Structures are given as C-alpha cells and as structure tokens.
C-alpha cells in the first residue's frame, strides 16, 4: 500500500524537520536513498527550484512534488497531509497545555544545539546536491563547477534579487550553453 507508506514517510519528515524552509531537504535526500523508486537525488534539485519559484511554503511544495513523483496525483495530496499531520497534532497540544512553550527554558536549551545542527543538516543536503551537479556523471564537470562558483558569488552579492531570477538564469545557461551537461 504505497499511500500508507508515503503518508508515514512524510509524517516522519514533518515530525523531525524543525526550522522551516529547507529543513526538510536532508530528509528528502535520505528518502531518495531509501526509496529510490519514489524519487531520485537529482530530482530533489528540480523540486527545490520549482518550490522556490511558486507560491506557498517551500516545505509543503516539496512534499507535494515528491509525493506526486512517487505516486501521482493522490500521492501529492497524501504526502502533504502526512507532512502537516504532526504539526497539527503538536500545535493543538501546545495551544491547549503549554502556554509559554517558546519561553520554556528546556525548549530554549534544546534549540541552542538544534539550530546549528539543522544548518549542518541543510549543508549536508546541499553538498550532496552539489556532488550530483559537479560529479553526477562520474567525472568532474569543470564547467558546472565554474558556473556554480560564479552564480554563488552573484547570489551573495545581489541579495535582493528574487530566487526565481537566479533559477531562470540557470535554466537559460543550461539550455543555451548546456552548462549542466
């Protein structure tokens, strides 16, 4: 029963990804490792691109996309519901019983270690993705590495440019100069 398995996998992602945005990325990467017939690691890059270029929370967009890739239309809906289910349960419990949850000293202690660790997890996923980009075909792709370096400097220099613009630039460079191939 793929829908049940899909719901469970995304329930776990929803439960353990803390910090929003790209925090689900390392879990999706792990999912591509354990369930390669659902999604592949290189598809994750496409998911990030599409999720950043469309409205809606990135984590939800990625869940819908990954679910769709795994099991079609219903898969997208099931994965999304699986990912939000832990939030709904946990937030209702907190709203009911823990009024000052975010000011609780134990929660603050946990977050002192959680925050840098989550950044580390996103770095892990980013490095894996970069590995596919520059070393995907088993040989070092100098051209892709160079374009990555230039784009990174550009993104960090022009901070206010919308991600959609950078993604479009990547698409044009790919189509015209085949930089990723």
């Amino acid at each position, binding site marked *: 029963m793929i829908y049940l398995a899909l719901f469970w996998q995304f329930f776990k992602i929803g439960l353990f990804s*803390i910090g929003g*945005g790209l925090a689900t990325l390392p879990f999706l990467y792990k999912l591509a490792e354990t369930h390669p017939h659902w999604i592949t690691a290189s598809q994750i890059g496409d998911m990030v691109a599409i999720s950043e270029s469309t409205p809606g929370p990135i984590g939800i967009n990625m869940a819908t996309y990954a679910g769709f890739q795994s099991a079609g239309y219903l898969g997208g809906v099931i994965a999304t519901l699986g990912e939000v289910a832990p939030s709904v349960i946990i937030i209702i419990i907190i709203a009911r019983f823990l009024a000052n949850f975010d000011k609780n000293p134990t929660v603050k202690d946990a977050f002192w270690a959680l925050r840098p660790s989550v950044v580390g997890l996103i770095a892990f996923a980013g490095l894996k993705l970069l590995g596919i980009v520059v070393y995907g075909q088993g040989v070092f792709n100098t051209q892709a590495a160079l374009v990555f370096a230039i784009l990174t400097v550009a993104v960090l220099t022009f901070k206010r440019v919308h991600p959609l613009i950078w993604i479009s630039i990547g698409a044009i460079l790919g189509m015209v100069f085949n930089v990723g191939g």
Partner: protein
Amino acid sequence: MNTRLIDLYIAFLKIGGLTFGGGYAMLPMLQREVIDKHGWATLEEVLDIYAIGQCTPGIIAVNTATMIGYRQRGVIGAIVATLGEVTPSVVIITALASLLVRVQDLVLVQRAFAGIRIAVCALIVQSILTLAKKSVVDIPTTLLFLVSVALTLGFGLSPIAVIILAIGLGIGVGRFRERGTR
C-alpha cells in the same frame, strides 16, 4: 468566537497562495488577513504564535496557521486553517509537476533543469549562510554545525538521529550549566 470556518479557510488560502517561500515572507500577508481584516489576533500575538511555529516541528507557515485556526475554532478550526494554507501548494505544484512529466524527456528541458540545479546549489549556499549568521555564532555552535555535517556526510547517520541527539545534548548542556551557576 463567531469566526466562520469558511473565513478561516479563505484567509489561509490567500496567505498560502500569495506568499513566496514561507518563513518571514508570510508575515505581511498574515498581518493583512489575520490582524487588519479579521482581527483574530494582535500583532504581538501573531509574533508570539510565529515564534512558537519556529520552535516546534514542521513547516513554520503550517504551524502558524494551525495555531491561529485552533484559537478561533478549536481542533476543527486548526484543521481548516491548515488545509487552506496548503491548498494552493497542492494545486499549483500538482499542475506543474504533471506538466513537467510530459516534457521531461525533451533534451532542452533536461538541459534547462541541469542548469537550474546549479542555480539551486548557489541559492542553498545563500540560505545556509543566512541561517548560520543567526545560529552558528561561537565555538560550541560551530562545533555542533561541523559535527552535524560530519555525522551525516561522513558516517551516513540519518538526519532524524542528528535531531534527536541535538535535542538531548542541548537539554543536557542546559542542565549542566544550571548546576554550574547555582
């Protein structure tokens, strides 16, 4: 307490559909719909709810929607607000993904996505640096960052294990510090 469920659904449908990227990007829309239009919360309450959304598991935007929905109409309100928040994503992404499936074998599309993946890597670097600026601030947090990368990348540890270890370590260190100051 007379908030209609349909109002909750539509308010969060708009917030989800008009926010690019979640996180802080949703605050202006939250302010317009939740504070100005419906008066479901004050700015201060919204910021508190947002803070809770950040330090609970799951997507921040969803956590915020759930909390505001719950405060208005209980469990059913929480569910309705959440469904409103995710509806635009599901519709837009499903439409786009089903379109892409049809064209994914075209050489030009494959080339475009190969290029896009490079741009995505650059964007992830930016996200990591933005996050690191706030959370990797001294030697202990730098060590935590590096250990997290090493455990996953080097030792193949699952991200779930890293999250659980970090929570345990953070609480443990907190207790230890408390004892030291007493």
